[in-house]
């Protein structure tokens, strides 16, 4: 199968519900043809509303427009938008078996039984659910249901594939496996996809771009790398991955912290908020660093040690260390970090 997606353009799409609640601030965003964009954020951040506006399940407030390629679909009802959607609850029809579920969209389009059967067979193979065609829905496991839901959504060759937390209902192990399967499937289909999740690992794996959302507005748009290493603000830094955010005075190219000083690249003097990822730190002898602190706890998590160090900054610092390192609580250690890994966050000083 080849790419059959379109670009999506949202212009000033906001959503205010009848009770006056603002679910989404007017938002403009362009999603390229064939791209996978992940909307990431906690519940209530507006990501699902965004997805439902693209789907046509919600209409944007006046002034908002939704375009698929050159076509304005703002007033096109969902049943004519030709979007495939995978729901969090899967929403498989219990009165139809697996094959009937997958073929339903084709049947509605008046596609003949023979062609339908062939297309269903293709999708069954593609999603790896061979042999389940005549099963009823309640005989399927969670993972199988997920695949049927996906097959049903792509069967209609949608212009856009929308996925609303499609892995949330599964247990952790299965979730991880399906995540990478889904990734290769989306790449293979080359379809424009919009994926909504609150799970940052899913976002990292699947997104060409990630849109981090907060309180009905976009907090940052960027590649997984950008989001992780160059978060635009404290919210993104703390929501995506673990982060040490410190607030301090910046002088002579370094942050002045309780436990010493921390060199920063491109520093401007004054009050600053900085972020350092736990894995960016190195633990060195106290004498070899300008910043020192006392080891508070050491937790062995298998592939590494998670160490908390007190007294270095205003809050204990999280540090990931190699699992062979000899550190013990009470020890005083030095901390170093490559200057580029200290990320100054704009406009966040309180």
């Amino acid at each position, binding site marked *: 199968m080849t790419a059959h997606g379109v670009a999506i353009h949202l212009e000033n799409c906001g959503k205010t519900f009848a009770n006056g609640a603002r679910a989404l601030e007017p938002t403009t965003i362009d999603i390229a043809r064939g791209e996978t964009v992940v909307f990431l954020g906690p519940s209530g951040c507006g990501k699902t509303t965004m997805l439902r506006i693209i*789907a046509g*399940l919600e209409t944007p407030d006046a002034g908002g427009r939704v375009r698929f390629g050159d076509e304005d679909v703002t007033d096109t*009802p969902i*049943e004519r938008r*030709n979007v495939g*959607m995978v729901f969090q609850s899967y*929403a498989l029809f219990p009165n139809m078996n697996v094959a009937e579920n997958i073929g339903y969209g084709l049947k*509605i389009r008046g596609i003949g039984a023979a062609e339908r059967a062939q297309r269903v067979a293709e999708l069954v193979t593609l999603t790896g659910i061979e042999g389940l065609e005549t099963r009823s829905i309640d005989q399927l496991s969670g993972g199988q249901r997920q695949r049927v839901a996906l097959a049903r*959504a792509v069967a209609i060759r949608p212009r856009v594939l929308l996925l609303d937390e499609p892995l949330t209902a599964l247990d952790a192990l299965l979730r991880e496996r399906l995540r990478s399967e889904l990734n290769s499937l989306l790449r293979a289909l080359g379809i424009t996809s919009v994926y909504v999740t609150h799970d940052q690992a899913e976002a990292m794996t699947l997104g060409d771009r990630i849109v981090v959302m907060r309180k009905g507005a976009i907090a940052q748009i960027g590649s997984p790398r950008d989001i992780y290493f160059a978060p635009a603000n404290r919210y993104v830094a703390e929501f995506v991955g673990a982060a040490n955010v410190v607030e301090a005075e910046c002088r002579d190219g370094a942050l002045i912290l309780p436990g010493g000083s921390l060199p920063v690249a491109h520093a401007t003097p004054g009050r600053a908020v900085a972020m350092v990822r736990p894995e960016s730190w190195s633990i060195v002898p106290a004498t070899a660093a300008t910043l020192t602190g006392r080891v508070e706890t050491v937790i062995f998590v298998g592939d590494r040690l998670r160490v908390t160090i007190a007294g270095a900054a205003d809050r204990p610092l999280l540090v990931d260390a190699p699992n062979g390192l000899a550190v013990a609580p009470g020890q005083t250690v030095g901390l170093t970090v490559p200057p580029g890994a200290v990320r100054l966050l704009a406009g966040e000083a309180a």
Partner: protein
Amino acid sequence: MVVAFFLLPMARLIVTGASGPSGIAAYAAILVEPRYRATLINTVVLATATTAAALVVSTIAALFLQRHRFPGRSLLIALLTFPLALPGVVIGFLIILLAGRQGLIGDVTAFAFGEKWVFAYSMQGLFLGYLYFSIPRVILTVMAAVEKLDPALEEAARTLGAQPWAVHRDVILPALMPAFIASGAIAFATAMGAFGTAFTLATNVNVLPMLIYTEFTLSANIAMAAALSVGLGLVTWAALALARSAGGTVAAAG
């Protein structure tokens, strides 16, 4: 106590049914003897028609009430479910007030068409009465089922291109089928066994409970009355067993 006052008497009823002059054949007479058979068919037709009508009107109202929130909605639900525990005799009387000689429908039609419609004591009157007590039972069950429907089912069908009527035909009504079976069976069982309403209205029409009553009191044909009761009990029991297998809980009282 349950044993003494319920199980033993029921056993006695079954035995009595076979103790008449014709013995066990009394049970067969329900189906064979023209008078009994006609009554049985009458009752089944009436109960089926009531059930079908109640399902249709209640489903329309239940879908509407669960999909929209508007002022007065809970009052409307209360009004639609209030006859649930109303006795059949009273319902019969209400039908007389509606379609009897001094009834509202008669007054309205006399005014509109110059002809007074009086049908309280006919099959149509019974139908109206049975519909009256069936609606609350069906509406409650169907409303509960609509509420439990995953809204994503409808949305999914629409993303796949289904127009509203196709959504209903292919997804919503099939998903409500267990509720239809459950509430339909309850309505059917209740209509089959309804005595109070029939007692007030069925002066010209013969239905099974009235037949049992007249066999027992007027003809003193106790064995036949018992046999007919057992037959009726079996039918209603089977209908309710069906309802329960489909997950129904609203009981048939009336």
